[in-house]
């Protein structure tokens, strides 16, 4: 199906109705039951995690957070990938991180920027990196990961591997030059790369209608000579199928695909945002009825793969795990002051050695005159 640019017919691919019942005539993807239930567990964890972190942020115990509530199904475009495949995420795909094995503790340590943060407290919350899981470092400038994913895909092929790379981004990011150059290079190179555009309707306060006059975001694929597919981004089965087709096509040398996952940003852009200022408060309601977690739960129930009791147990297990991670993270100091100068270069050049010596000496001097005056070298929240 991806062989024909779906964007030219703008068809929206769906498998489940809004309560998770398969649509009449829909082709059910052949996903093993264990994978289905694991997707549900990870999606539920993501939902709960978002909720807990937001509350933490509201209590002033966390500087910043970005939720993906209501969009979680789109994260599972990464589910059909192999572990050796690379993901170039944006900041709103927590589900893909947990799916690949990033732990709650690692996530929390990064949010707190403490000494166990896998990136040593270098970046703000949510901007993680996990090379051991082939989850590439997130940066704030949107879209930059797109040509990077294309380059990695090119490299994989050049080095004789059959790995695929997947880049995630929002529909607003399709307006950047990076989107264009990335997809254009991918088309010309027939790079083994899959582009997942989460169309959640909003870029902070800007509606998708202000981002482009194109019929759909999938239609942009035509300009790059690659297939574009539009999928219900709240229907994890449809997302899985569309992604799996695109991934296998890329792996087989068929080239890149642009997937538009149609979903909705149910809450604010980030913990700093207040959507009531710019959008109709009733809008989210419509989408809550299409909630991806409910739909998957409904489907599992309908398949007899999931029960109320299991759900309660799962929630409790996740809740405990998060509580424990937070408690552990709270006790951890931040990175040591001298680490400020590491990793700028492979080796420390003379000017950074000089600057490090200056900072340490200066702090000693101040502490000497005014004990405890230098800011404690711990993560501040």
């Amino acid at each position, binding site marked *: 199906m991806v062989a024909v640019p779906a964007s030219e017919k703008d068809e929206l691919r769906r498998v489940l109705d809004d309560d998770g019942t398969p649509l009449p005539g829909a082709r059910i993807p052949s996903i093993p039951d264990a994978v289905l239930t694991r997707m549900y567990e990870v999606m539920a964890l993501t939902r709960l995690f978002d909720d807990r972190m937001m509350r933490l942020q509201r209590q002033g115990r966390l500087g910043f957070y970005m939720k993906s509530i209501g969009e979680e199904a789109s994260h599972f475009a990464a589910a059909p990938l192999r572990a050796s495949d690379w993901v170039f995420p944006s900041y709103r795909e927590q589900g893909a991180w947990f799916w690949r094995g990033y732990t709650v503790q690692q996530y929390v340590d990064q949010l707190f920027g*403490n000494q166990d943060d896998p990136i040593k407290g*270098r970046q*703000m919350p949510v901007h993680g990196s996990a090379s051991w899981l082939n989850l590439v470092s997130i940066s704030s*400038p949107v879209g930059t990961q797109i040509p990077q994913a294309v380059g990695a895909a090119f490299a994989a092929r050049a080095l004789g591997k059959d790995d695929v790379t997947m880049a995630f981004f929002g529909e*607003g990011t399709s307006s950047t030059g990076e989107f264009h150059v990335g997809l254009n290079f991918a088309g010309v190179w027939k790079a083994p790369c899959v582009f997942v555009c989460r169309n959640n309707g909003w870029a902070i*306060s*800007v509606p998708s209608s202000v981002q482009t006059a194109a019929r759909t975001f999938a239609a942009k694929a035509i300009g790059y000579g690659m297939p574009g597919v539009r999928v219900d981004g709240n229907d994890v089965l449809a997302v899985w199928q569309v992604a799996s087709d695109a991934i296998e096509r890329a792996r087989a040398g068929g080239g890149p695909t642009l997937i538009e996952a149609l979903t909705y940003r149910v809450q604010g852009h980030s913990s700093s945002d207040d959507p009531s200022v710019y959008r109709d408060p009733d809008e989210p309601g419509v989408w809550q009825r299409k909630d991806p977690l409910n739909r998957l739960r409904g489907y599992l129930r309908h398949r007899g793969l999931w029960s109320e009791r299991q759900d309660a147990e799962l929630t409790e297990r996740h809740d405990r795990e998060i509580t424990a991670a937070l408690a552990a993270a709270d006790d951890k100091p931040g990175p040591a002051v001298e680490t400020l100068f590491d990793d700028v270069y492979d080796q420390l050049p003379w000017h950074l050695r000089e600057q490090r010596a200056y900072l340490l000496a200066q702090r000693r001097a101040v502490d000497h005159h005014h004990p405890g005056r230098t800011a404690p070298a711990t*993560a*501040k929240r």
Partner: protein
Amino acid sequence: MPTMNIIEAVRSALQTQMRADPRVVVLGEDVGKFGGVFRATSGLYDEFGADRVIDTPLAEAGIIGTAIGMALYGLRPVPEIQFGDFIFPAFDQIVNELAKFRYRSGGQYPCPVVIRTPVGGGIRGGHYHSQSPEALFIHTPGLKVVAPSNPYDAKGLLLACMRQNDPVLFMEPKRIYRASKADVPEGEYTIELGKAQIVRDGTQVTVVAWSGMVEIAEKAAGLAAEAGISAEVLDLRTLMPFDIDALLTSVHKTGRVVIVHEAPRTCGFGAELIASIQERAMAHLEAPIIRVTGFDTPFPYSLEHEYLPNPDRVLGAIRQTLEW
């Protein structure tokens, strides 16, 4: 006279000029209905409408590129770049186009675009919500660079920028956007570009700062005073063209200089100030000019308070130059 913070002063300047000059338009990401992520344009959309307060697609190159075209045709665009850290996708449009348009066309095409953008750290924003890129633009002939440190200057300088004919990068100190409050006239007033201001008189050492670092310099001067040292604090306000006369006058008086900036040290604007001063006033210098700056690393998250200059570090530098 009402009390305003920097956000309110910026908004007041925009509103004042948009009422005075129908050619003035504001464009950028989230500047419209939402009024900007820092709310600097809030209310303008309701007063002036969607044709003058424009929510753009997410593309800085498009924001600046179209602003250039608007200015060429006769509008007075005041684009907002949401964070200074996100100005780089528009870097080519700014340094190769905006800055060079008047010159390359032999004066045929002036390009009066005033780019507003919040800069600086201290808000726990990490790499990409904290940078201070002034040096890159000061090094670009054709641009003016303005960096107010308080609400009164913010409004007066922004009005001045919107009433002259050269492209300007107007950098706003986001850390003190709301914390810095002052009496600001409701109506019209301008502050001449290129003029520094002595924010604290002193005799033994000159501390030069701008934007968010002026407050740090003043605190350091306070600590110095407690230690019996008289430090003069100079707020440059305009970085290109900078006020060489004010600098030299102060240096002739004190003979000692400390420069404070947030940006990484190497090739930062502090280096230019040192070069310009020593070229003209070496005979008056009684000690090397010392820089207190951000370190030559990307802007960190957990350790940002170690990274940023603080009053103790400035005081240390003041002592050092006096002991030299």
